[in-house]
């Protein structure tokens, strides 16, 4: 195997740095918005699914559907498929909707799992203090559950950040799309994909470092003291 590092020219990256940085901004924007959607959907769906009702069963269908089909298929269906029926949304919206619904399915399972980890005693205590079910969940159980859920949620965020590369196929100029543009112009595959991989890594790693600091803080805040 002859590997020739002499062919590597980092100049290409310098030439395209402004475009790459702008695209990184788009990637972050899509990730954050989609994750907020996923979090909202996930908390609502996960909570509703923590009790055995017909609504829970119906929402179970949503979760299975979005976990059981590829994200790329979902994105194409939402963007190109629904457009055929007259439901036309801009690419950015379609990306956030697709990533949000997909992520929501996973987040809801995290939330459901975290809720089930909260002891029966918490519910009973809340009940004896006069809290209804909604009040118990909102003020007593959810704050504890979300603390347990923090590590897997960070995991979801990182997955979502990487999954945004798929929305390049909806002609959104995020990092993967700009990488392909540069690649098709310069054919410097090694330099471009190495740098783009590094950019994704820096973003996810930066986030996980920040979230560990958050975890340490939450661990101190009384109660379970589970996170280390």
């Amino acid at each position: 195997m002859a590997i020739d590092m002499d062919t590597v020219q980092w100049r290409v990256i310098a030439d395209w740095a402004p475009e790459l940085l702008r695209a990184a901004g788009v990637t972050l924007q899509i990730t954050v918005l989609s994750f907020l959607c996923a979090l909202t959907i996930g908390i609502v769906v996960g909570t509703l699914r923590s009790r055995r009702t017909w609504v829970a069963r119906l929402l179970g269908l949503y979760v299975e559907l979005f976990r059981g089909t590829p994200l790329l298929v979902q994105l194409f269906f939402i963007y190109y498929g629904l457009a055929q029926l007259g439901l036309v949304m801009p690419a950015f919206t379609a990306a956030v909707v697709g990533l949000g619904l997909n992520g929501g399915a996973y987040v809801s399972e995290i939330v459901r799992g975290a809720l089930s980890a909260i002891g029966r005693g918490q519910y009973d205590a809340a009940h004896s203090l006069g809290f209804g079910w909604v009040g118990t969940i909102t003020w007593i159980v959810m704050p504890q559950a979300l603390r347990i859920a923090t590590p897997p949620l960070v995991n979801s965020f990182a997955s979502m950040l990487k999954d945004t590369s798929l929305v390049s196929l909806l002609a959104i100029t995020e990092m993967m799309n700009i990488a392909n543009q540069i690649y098709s112009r310069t054919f410097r595959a090694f330099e471009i994909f190495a740098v783009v991989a590094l950019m994704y890594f820096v973003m996810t790693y930066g986030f996980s470092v920040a979230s560990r600091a958050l975890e340490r803080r939450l661990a101190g805040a009384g109660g379970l003291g589970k996170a280390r």
Partner: protein
Amino acid sequence: MKQRNARSFGLVLCITMAFALILGLSGCGNEAETGSSDDSLKTVQERGELIVGLAPFYAPFESTNETTKEIEGFDVDLAGVIAEKMGVKAVFKGAEWQGLLGGLEKGDYDVLVTAMSKKEAAEANVEFSDVYYLLDDIIIVPKGNPKNISGKDDLADMVVGVQLGSGSEQIGDALNTEVGFKDLRKYKLTQDAMNDLKAGRIDAVLAGETFAVEQSKVDPSFDVVGEPLESAEIVAVFRKGSTALVEEFNRQLAVVIQEGTYDELVAKWLTVTL
């Protein structure tokens, strides 16, 4: 504190290993190149097959037939007769457009015959055959031309779609600088752009003329407007250094043109009837 130290040690270790890996790889590089003698033609003749790479999403040049599921089109027939004249059999390998040149360089194909223009392959380390077709790029709008686009100047403040990595993308970039679009959106396939045009999410698509005509046959919701934007020189694309194969290909291309087979193929596939 101890924990943090352990963590940063892990990070340092990771980075060190990454560097070691890169250095190690470059260290084992610089082996002798596999001779400068050109055995490109010999390899093909000995194999008895000319491996042709193409992206079969571009009717009428190359597409998958709906009933036979075989790849067919002008390029397929042309490469077929040229291979025949060379005394070998053409074998077609379909791939993604954006991956074709990389695959060629890697050795997956002997040649790309896929309506590729000189400009599209210019930056890659490749050789070209003689020009075998001139393909006009044109402006496609929805049927009825709702935005009244009659030429490139009317594209100012419009949302325009092109296929990523195509000659149309390059024309789009140049026009964007010249007249100023509202947005230039870059799709994986021109078909995706056409879909968005139909859905009303974009105002115009730039693409090769024959492709546009073929599409309007399948789906009559498009119109072609204005003068052709630019003519692209379509060539077969070879790996750098396969001079013998390029020369043989050109020789047989000339024969195919001279014998009239070329004109028959143009009449069969590329005759524009709007």
